[in-house]
């Protein structure tokens, strides 16, 4: 179970949402939404070190279903959030980081596209492929 979301400032509306599998999506959306608050908190916390390369957020373990929510913030305050199943213990920290890095790289590639207006939803096929392959790896 994996869900990734990219949210952009300032209103933090999602630019891209992809999850596997697709049921209970709404619950994941809710989870992500609430975790955004925590992410913001963390950003404001380390105000001095403006550039926060990656942040590992391990938390929001629900009593019933346990899953972990990871967050990542880019220089332009674009937030990436990933929700993974806790039962998937194979996922290590490094892997999460590499996934975020890949996401970030793909995101910058999208930014390079002059036809993309920042703030639009992301419809890029290349991006989709990348995210899909990433998720396949995990599940």
């Amino acid at each position, binding site marked *: 179970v994996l869900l990734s979301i990219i949210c952009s400032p300032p209103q933090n509306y999602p630019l891209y949402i992809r999850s596997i599998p697709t049921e209970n999506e709404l619950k994941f959306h809710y989870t992500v939404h609430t975790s955004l608050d925590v992410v913001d908190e963390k950003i404001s916390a*380390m105000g001095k070190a403006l550039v926060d390369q990656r942040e*590992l957020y391990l938390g929001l373990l629900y009593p019933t279903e346990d899953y972990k929510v990871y967050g990542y913030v880019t220089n332009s305050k674009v937030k990436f959030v990933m929700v993974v199943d806790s039962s998937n213990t194979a996922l290590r*920290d490094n892997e999460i980081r590499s996934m975020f890095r890949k996401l970030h790289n793909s995101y*910058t590639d999208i930014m390079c596209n*002059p036809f993309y207006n920042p703030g639009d939803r992301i*419809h*890029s*096929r*290349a991006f989709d*492929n990348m995210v899909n392959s990433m998720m396949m790896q995990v599940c």
Partner: protein
Amino acid sequence: MEQGPAGGSAAAAAAAGTGGLLLPLSESEQQRYSELFSRCCPPPEAAAGGSSVGELFRASQLPPDTLHQITEVCGAKRVGYFGPAQFYIALKLIAAAQSGFPVRIESIKNELPLPRFMALKNDSEVRYGTPAELHGVKFQVPHATLEKNSYKRTDEGDKQEPKSPPMSPICSPPASPSTYQRIPLSYGYGKSRSGLEQQHAAPYEVRHSAHQQDGPSSGNYGPKPALASSTLNRSLSAEREQPESSAHYSDDPWRITEEQRDYYINQFRSLQPDLNSFISGSVAKNFFTKSKLPIPELSHIWELSDVDCDGALTLPEFCAAFHLVVARKNGYQLPETLPETLQPEYLQAASLKPMRDCALFDSYSESLPGGQQARDFSRTEKASAEEVPDNSALLQDAKKEDKQALKVSTPLKTIPKEFQHLTVKTAAQESNALRARPRSRSYSSTSIEDAMKKGEEPPTPPPRPQKSHSRASSLDLNKIFQQNAQAVRSGWLPPPPPALPPRPSVSQEVVLAQPPSKPTRRKLRTETQGLETPELSPTINVTSSLPAVKPHLPVQKQSSKQKRAIQTAIRKNKEANAVLARLNSELQQQLKEVHKERIALETQLEQLRPVTVL
């Protein structure tokens, strides 16, 4: 040619598509029109087949302007097809035009003679037979206008026949507004104006219709290709002669033909005069937006074509993008990944050929084992600053350049573009030094500086080679070269009067010595071998021509002159070697320094990386 009776309009009135205008048709007219209509559109089709209508219109021998106008006025443009009403009106308008009336609805209210169509007598001609194999698809006006583009080539209409069925279903979705905007642009093709771009646009159009299953491959880019010339028609016919030559490309829609490439290159030039530089994202965006493709598709095209994701398009990237746009407009679905024939590397290699033909003396290139390399260098010299180099690659560039300077036969294709352009730049410097060609010297130096500005690598190296190399030593060599030339010339001059007859031939030899070096200058060979052979060749020329001169000159002087020439050549080579060796050592040093810096930065980074939470 029947001329209907002047008076007596009959009862039949065609309800015109133009706002309910009732058009009185005489009996003969009606008869004729229905006959023509049925010919163009065998029942039970409701609309006339496009090509047959086009043929018919063309047979009326009216200028394409008029035909376009007629199409517009009769309402076929608006509704998008030639229904009976539109058809009849069009015929009436044709008659009006042939009688000299302006193409207006008003003019057809009068009594008019029947429209005259050439070759209509040969009704049984196959021409009408083949169009009769109808697609069962509504005729789309852009199709006809495209055929009007190829005004004099009726057979093209036939050729387009089998292609349009697969195409039309795809194209029918485009909304009529897009149809509209295609038509005025295609009208431009029909008109007769001149312009270089139009000629390119036209072969591009023709190429498409010939090779790609298309229909309304209209001139997209707004006003630019809007006007074609009568030379356009000629060029069209000329182009049509060659289609079979590239026919083997026609099965691969992702392959760019020569004419298309030329067109793309011209378009690139219009946006960015320097072919070796790139088009920025916003400029490209504006340009491609003119094609009226939806933004998501354009976005996808960009993703496919901008392989290095730098937000800018180099020439091959631009060609690929343009080609994709064209293909999309012709109804092809965009691929998920960039086809191999559109990859920048492939396009660069493919662009090798035309560059080579225009620039080089093949004899020299073949004589070299690194001839391929030389050709590539010349091409990359022209396309050298194509991409902003990955500046991590700058290090390797320096290394590779040294290797190449020493070794001759490194296969070029394995070296990525960045390497090529940098090596060519330094190569340009070297060859410039020896050939005393100020123009390319400054070019290479500026491009190096540009590369450096964009580079992430901390500043240091590249300015150095220039200073040491291009300025100082090049000047020396320049002088030396001239001195040598002087020496040679002066060497020839002193021979006493008995040697007068040989002097003209001597000067010829000197002149001969010069031109062979010129093409090599252009070729920009980096290998020392390359440097040597031109050196040798003038001397060879001299020596070979010497025997011819022998009878006239004293033998001793000959041999001494030979020796002098050889010594000059040797000296030059030694200097070149020295220069290259110096360059090599400098670059090595730079490499070391950059490595050190990199290590330092990496350690810093590690230190600065925040400690992980929890």
